[in-house]
């Protein structure tokens, strides 16, 4: 029953494709504020969904988002003048995968706490290393990025990345890896004794997640025009992505999507009106989620949906 594609899945896919097609029309309608907001939302949807691909099933809170995002952006700054755009993207993906692999191999054999601590400082570590490298070897810290790419093109590429991320999430859920992850989530001891290489599964998943986030960083890089370590590796993005994914619910593929929309709007509002209070907002959001919506908004939605009268009737019917 988990192997054959069901009619509902085909319908969902068609709906998703149609939604992407409609959203792709945004730049035709507006190329100012709304396009900028669209770019922001699309980048967070891709990152939060990619984050939840790993952290949802494993329950390992990854704070490495800024490290992947920044590395992707830095690949662009390093190669912008010497390589065509597709090559740059491939290089960014490779750097993301390698970084995730190195972190995963060092920490994922151990408990989740080691992993959290490691990723907690990772962006700051890479920022220091890049700064040190640039000051001692290349001599200048900042770089200008000149890439011939329009805001609309960035937006379309981000939409494509969102589509890719959802497709990968869907494909994983249907694969051996997805099945293994459900077992690991339930009982890691049983997983190991049933023949699942738990560490390998986690590292592989972390690599997929890190690659996608590095790609988002690469696509977003031309938006910065000027890049330096403290911009590319700003640690706020790590925390924002965690909050959005948790607000929506990290256990469902569509969960983070539900969290990104309200949080991005709220964040834009707060950072525009009270720029000094974004930290306080983040903190309060974290506390509210932990205490009041631990399953995320998607969990509440599913619960509410199941309580609807027609769902109750259907459930009673299937039991009888």
């Amino acid at each position, binding site marked *: 029953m988990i192997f054959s594609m069901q009619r509902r899945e085909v319908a969902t896919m068609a709906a998703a494709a149609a939604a992407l097609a409609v959203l792709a029309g945004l730049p035709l309608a507006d190329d100012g504020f709304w396009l900028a907001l669209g770019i922001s939302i699309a980048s967070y949807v891709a990152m939060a969904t990619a984050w939840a691909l790993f952290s949802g099933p494993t329950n390992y809170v990854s704070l490495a988002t800024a490290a992947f995002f920044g590395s992707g952006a830095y690949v662009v700054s390093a190669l912008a003048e010497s390589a065509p755009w597709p090559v740059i993207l491939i290089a960014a993906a490779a750097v993301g995968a390698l970084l995730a692999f190195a972190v995963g191999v060092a920490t994922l054999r151990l408990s989740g706490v080691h992993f959290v601590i490691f990723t*907690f400082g990772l962006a700051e570590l890479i920022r220091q*290393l890049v*700064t040190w490298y640039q000051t001692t070897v290349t001599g200048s810290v900042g770089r200008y990025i000149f890439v011939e790419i329009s805001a609309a093109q960035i937006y379309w590429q981000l939409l494509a990345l969102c589509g890719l991320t959802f497709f990968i999430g869907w494909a994983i859920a249907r694969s051996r890896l997805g099945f293994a992850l459900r077992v690991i989530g339930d009982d890691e001891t049983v997983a190991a004794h049933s023949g699942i290489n738990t560490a390998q599964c986690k590292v592989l998943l972390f690599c997929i997640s890190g690659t996608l986030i590095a790609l988002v960083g690469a696509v977003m890089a031309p938006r910065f025009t000027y890049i330096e370590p403290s911009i590319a590796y700003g640690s706020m993005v790590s925390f924002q992505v965690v909050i959005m994914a948790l607000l929506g619910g990290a256990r469902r593929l569509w969960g983070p999507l539900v969290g990104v929309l309200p949080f991005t709007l709220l964040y834009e509002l707060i950072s525009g009106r009270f720029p*000094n209070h974004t930290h*306080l907002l983040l903190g309060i959001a974290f*506390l509210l989620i932990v*205490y009041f919506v631990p399953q995320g908004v998607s969990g509440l939605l599913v619960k509410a949906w199941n309580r609807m009268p027609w769902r109750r009737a259907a459930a009673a019917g299937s039991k009888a």
Partner: protein
Amino acid sequence: MLTVIVVTSLLLGGAYALMAMGLTLQYGVARILNLSTGETLVGAAFASFWLFTAAKLSPLLTLLVVVPAAFVLNWLIYRYLLTPLVRRAKNRGMLEADSILATFGLLFVMQGLMLAGFGGNYYSYSYLAQPVTLFDHTFGLNRLVAFAIAAAVALGLYLGLSHTRQGMAIRAVAVNPLAAGLVAIDVPRTAGFAFALGGALTACGGSLLSMFLTFNASMGVVFTMKALIIVIMGGVGDIRGAVIAALLLALVETMVASLIDPGLTLAATFLLFVLTLLFRPQGIMGKRA
């Protein structure tokens, strides 16, 4: 040169040890991985700064205000914010994930409040800044005094944990909360006490550091990182391990900063962390399972 490095790192290591002992109590006994520990430290530094500049209170006297205040505040945090999470958690993994997220919240709330109050500027004040000659080199008197206080507090804590009833209860809960409950130890109360004591130690470290370091409102994360790495290196819940690891970390940091590049101190601490993870994940003092 070597003498300077060793003495400087020893003097710095005293305050690091206090902050790491605080975190190891919170994580090892109360089972809360407190990611806002650096904010507690920076908060105490700001409190000392404020009391020194506004109320002209000597930093040594402010310790008597800041440390008990941190104890009470951390007790309240444990009692009202974290106890619901402890009750709700079905297993240790769930509590770990929940407490990480809740203390993230605290991290940002505390950082946000400090940013609102002091802005993003760097602060420092001058207290006991006269030079003292030691082994033919000069060191700040404030560093020496801070180290002496840290050493006294650390020794006091060690003796308290190993020779008092309350200390034994704390150690018992650290080893096995379930079994501790069976021998009539009030586990929630002991965990709350350990959390509060941990916060007080961290604040003490922060007040001492403020005597000779420059600090700002968003620096907490760096200290949290250092404290976490020290605790993992020393072995979770291990006081002696925390002290040794703190001194080791201060030594490596000072060496890298003075011999290679001050911009690479975090890289140096990470290197220590990676080596620990690869070769002694149970901590330098821990036994291999």
